[in-house]
């Protein structure tokens, strides 16, 4: 069960039209080498689920600039003008979701739930087309789970079994995305021996990780 693969071997898992979750928050904690790999292979028509579309030259934004993205489900596109331009030109479909709702929808899928009730978005355009449920006199939106074919995440330290530890603010969407995709590939800053991450400090247990690629550190 060796999970460590080369970046060349990642290629075999990439397909045009895939739905991808990609970790990171404004290019912090984003798996940059895996994005390089997507660019190098020019994988097309991607649906990407991510917190934001980064910047034109950093993070997930590079895939937008390179026109590999068909649809993006995200909470924020303001730092990447190219996302807005492609959206306005009708080249790219953008679905904006409140950040807390987006991460919770991903968690919901990973946790086997059918959805959840949130007060966020009530009285706004976010409620359009959604069921409202009143609990104890308070109105909530029913939000549904969202999953992906593949999650590309970034880990600061990854042991050889696939247990992951995240340093500081690089954690963000990564551990939750690892629970909600059919295939999970983690890009490691550092690959360490099993048990070098204390078992009580593991954030993503190894069972969620299918493949590990070694990052530049």
């Amino acid at each position, binding site marked *: 069960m060796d999970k460590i693969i080369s970046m060349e071997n990642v290629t075999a898992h990439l397909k045009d039209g895939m739905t991808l979750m990609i970790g990171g928050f404004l290019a912090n904690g984003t798996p940059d080498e895996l994005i390089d790999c997507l660019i190098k292979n020019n994988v097309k028509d991607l649906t990407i689920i991510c917190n934001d579309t980064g910047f034109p030259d950093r993070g997930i934004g590079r895939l937008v600039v390179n026109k590999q993205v068909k649809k993006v489900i995200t909470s*924020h596109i303001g730092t990447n003008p190219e996302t807005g331009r492609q*959206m306005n030109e009708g080249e790219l479909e953008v679905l904006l979701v409140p*950040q807390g709702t987006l991460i919770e929808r991903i968690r919901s899928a990973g946790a086997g739930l059918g959805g959840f009730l949130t007060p*966020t978005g*009530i*009285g706004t355009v*976010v409620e359009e087309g959604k069921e409202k449920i009143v609990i104890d006199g308070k109105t909530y939106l029913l939000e549904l789970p969202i999953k992906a074919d593949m999650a590309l995440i970034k880990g600061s330290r990854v042991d050889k079994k696939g247990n992951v530890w995240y340093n500081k603010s690089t954690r963000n969407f990564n551990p939750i995305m690892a629970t909600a995709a059919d295939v999970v590939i983690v890009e490691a800053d550092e690959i360490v021996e099993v048990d070098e991450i204390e078992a009580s400090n593991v954030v993503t247990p190894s069972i969620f990780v299918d493949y590990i690629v070694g990052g530049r550190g």
Partner: protein
Amino acid sequence: MDPRERIARRVAKELKNGDVVNLGIGMPTMVANFISEDIEVILQSENGFIGMGPIAEKDQIDKDLVNAGGVHVTSKKGAAFFDSAMSFAIIRGGHVDVTVLGALQVDENGNLANWMIPGKLVPGMGGAMDLVVGAKKVIVSMEHTAKGKAKILKSCNLPLTAKGEVDLIITEMGVIEVTDGGLLLKEIAPNISLEDIINSTEAKLIISPILKPMEY
């Protein structure tokens, strides 16, 4: 003094010892510079931590540490990092005492619009909708008008961020509380007349019988 600094200074006075506070991008971020040294305020950053410190100087930059604006910051002693699900559990669950945000528009009913101008500017709501719904106290901090046009309206006409969640509006002209009866002007800036502020506000302002000068 720069009007933006005056606003940030006045917002800082709203914070109490022990408060957990989320400061939005832009002017709200400046508030951190003016918090009294007599109190401890814990800054929450929605990308996943509490205990945010000042912007990192060049030699303090840590590639693994940014704030919710993607800017390299420092962390304080006793900081704690977590994932985005926990971050928004904290935000939506009422564990943030105060959130300070900018606004495009705010109205008599405490409605807030700050995330898009249709056909023009669509940055996305990011974490703003959750913050405004979840925080115990929502403070809008902004310049009173935009290019001479009122931003405090009878009714917002831009897409809302949240309905009826704003508690307090702080501008360079005054401090306005959102009450069930409408917008209550509680403080007015020293250089501003009542006529000035009324003329710069589309919404009806109820003048507090104990109207005070605004202090920074």
